[in-house]
């Protein structure tokens, strides 16, 4: 295994983490296949405008555009990099127990959910997962109404295609992400009535002001937040803490939102309700890592106060041989931390010297990013009393429209006390999204309602599903086709064929 044949690293996800990883792996002399289901690199943070928009000033919507643009061009133009846009990894096939190395990748190339996509397989020397996160949204009465969006959706539409979700928007939930979303809406010409942070000033301040010297290392991130805050000030948008939206109302769509004051544990202060007209509501209570692929690869997770994440060592190795993880799937710490992790992971996966001075610097900045993640989790926790705003008829599972009352019934019925049985009885988590949205909430509510700590079901249960991305039966039946620039592979292993 110590020949000078360059290693082949497959990087899944071209966000801040994946792009940095590809860059570092190429720098270490590896051959890289960079895969993303989107048409453009950038991920969530550097979501780009479509080429067809022919924008003269794409940089005006992006923080840190120039560094990103340089890296993007360097990576995509590199002779040892194959860039596979519009390509989804829909399954990972683990090697047989006696074999070493990473799992085989199963890819689908072509327009999202299209019937004519081509199937491919890939057997790299190392697999680097950088698939990111999505908004976590707690249920509340009316959250299924059209006009209620995740904060990420509003951000993606404004940044990625210049569509604003409404003209009278309330932004609510918890976390620093509320700020860029509000700023993006303002930039695009919406009126933002208020930004509501559910945690009280004491919690937020305690989280942010602990060990202030650590913050200096994240000057980029804090400076960025200051820019968003000044946008709110300029537009006279109130930023209220200790308040959240507890209900969205309207006839077939959002027309008004009810907010209320919260105690530090997120219990609602009675009589503090306030109703505001709104044509859109953007909500986020944090981010959930996309754990489908890491779990399909067999990676061990670590449980934190903010939920489960992929466990990695000091060099971003997961528990599986030749499988690395970077970015938001290892912890929610923002784009700079994702970049640092990606660079460490890419360098090591690409065969770079673990003792190189540059990688030591990167590890340090990665560690600062992790400290930042802990700070965020402490400043913006989800209060334990949040289910107080649920009503019996509140939808918990959006796909199946399972309401809170049926979950309660299932949890309290001795025959249905196991979450698995409850899931079948209520259908919660069995709809098209396969519990990506309600999974953590259903698990949490079930544990509380039945007083039974999840009955041996792993916390990450909802993510354990064989198919990470939907595939059509016709595509499944078609034989895989060879990928461009991947013809004969270096050492003896099967490639791109079945």
């Amino acid at each position, binding site marked *: 295994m110590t020949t000078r044949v360059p290693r082949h690293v497959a990087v899944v996800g071209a966000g801040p983490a994946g792009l940095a990883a590809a860059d570092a792996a190429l720098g270490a002399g590896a051959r890289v296949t960079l895969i993303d*289901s989107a*048409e453009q690199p950038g991920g*969530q943070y550097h979501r780009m*405008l*479509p*080429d*067809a*928009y*022919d*924008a*003269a*000033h*794409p940089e*005006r*919507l992006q923080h840190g555009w120039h560094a990103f643009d340089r890296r993007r061009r360097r990576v995509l133009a590199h002779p040892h990099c194959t860039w596979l846009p519009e390509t989804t990894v829909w399954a990972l096939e683990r090697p047989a127990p006696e074999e070493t190395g990473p799992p085989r990748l199963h890819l689908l190339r072509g*327009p*999202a*959910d*299209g*019937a004519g996509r081509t199937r491919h397989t890939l057997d790299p020397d190392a697999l680097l997962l950088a698939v990111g996160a*999505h*908004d976590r949204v707690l249920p509340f009465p009316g959250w*299924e109404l*059209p*006009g*209620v*969006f*995740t904060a*990420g*959706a*509003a951000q*993606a*539409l404004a940044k990625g*295609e*210049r*569509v*604003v*979700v*409404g*003209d009278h928007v309330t932004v609510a939930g918890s976390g620093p992400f509320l700020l860029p979303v509000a700023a993006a809406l303002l*930039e*695009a*010409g919406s009126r933002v009535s208020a930004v509501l942070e559910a945690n009280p000033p004491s919690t937020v301040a305690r989280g942010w002001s602990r060990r202030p010297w650590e913050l200096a290392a994240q000057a980029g991130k804090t400076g960025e937040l200051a820019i968003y805050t000044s946008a709110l000030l300029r537009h006279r948008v109130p930023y209220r803490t200790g308040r959240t939206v507890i209900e969205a109302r309207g006839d*077939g*769509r959002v027309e008004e939102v009810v907010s209320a004051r919260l105690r530090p544990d997120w219990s609602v202060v009675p009589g503090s309700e306030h109703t505001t007209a709104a*044509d*859109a509501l953007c909500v986020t209570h944090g981010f959930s890592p996309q754990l489908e692929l890491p779990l399909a690869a067999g990676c061990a997770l670590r449980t934190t106060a903010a939920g489960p994440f992929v466990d990695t060592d000091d060099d971003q190795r997961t528990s599986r041989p030749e499988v690395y993880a970077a970015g938001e799937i290892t912890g929610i710490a923002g784009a700079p931390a994702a970049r640092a992790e990606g660079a460490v992971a890419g360098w090591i996966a690409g065969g770079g010297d673990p003792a190189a001075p540059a990688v030591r610097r990167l590890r340090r900045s990665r560690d600062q990013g992790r400290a930042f993640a802990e700070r965020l989790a402490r400043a913006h926790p989800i209060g334990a009393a949040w289910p107080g705003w649920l009503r019996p008829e509140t939808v918990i599972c*959006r*796909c*199946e*429209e399972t309401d809170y009352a049926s979950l309660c019934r299932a949890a309290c019925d001795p025959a249905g006390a196991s979450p698995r049985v409850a899931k079948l009885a209520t*259908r919660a988590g*069995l*709809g*098209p*999204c396969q519990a*990506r*949205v309600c999974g953590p909430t259903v698990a949490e509510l079930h544990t509380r309602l039945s007083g039974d700590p999840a009955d041996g079901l792993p916390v990450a249960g909802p993510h354990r599903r064989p198919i990470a991305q*939907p595939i059509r039966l016709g595509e499944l039946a078609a034989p895989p086709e060879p990928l461009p620039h991947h013809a004969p592979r270096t050492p003896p292993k099967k490639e791109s064929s079945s």
Partner: protein
Amino acid sequence: MSPRRVPAGSDATGRRDRPLRITVDGEPADGIAGQSLAGVLLAAGRLAWRRGPSGAARGVFCGIGVCFDCLVTVNAERDVRACRRRAQDGDEVTTQSRHTDRNPPPTADGTPGTEER
């Protein structure tokens, strides 16, 4: 009022629009090249296009392909996430209801679901 596109004239990005037209249940909707189907639908004033099991209206929720609220039929291909699919000029979009989605659950009274508009 409702979602809309930032007018090209006042867009700081200096974008140049190339118009396209799709149909939604036979009715025309105008968008610009590069938009997702969800973006076209939203900017054309449609906040919702799918129906949940109870018949309640749904549109975009997560915007990035996670929640499956935005599923549509495109040129006879079912279950396409509108937020992830780039619109092509001439796309024929048909709205779906949860009853006719993949793996339709049996309805309470055992009757097969019906396509709703």
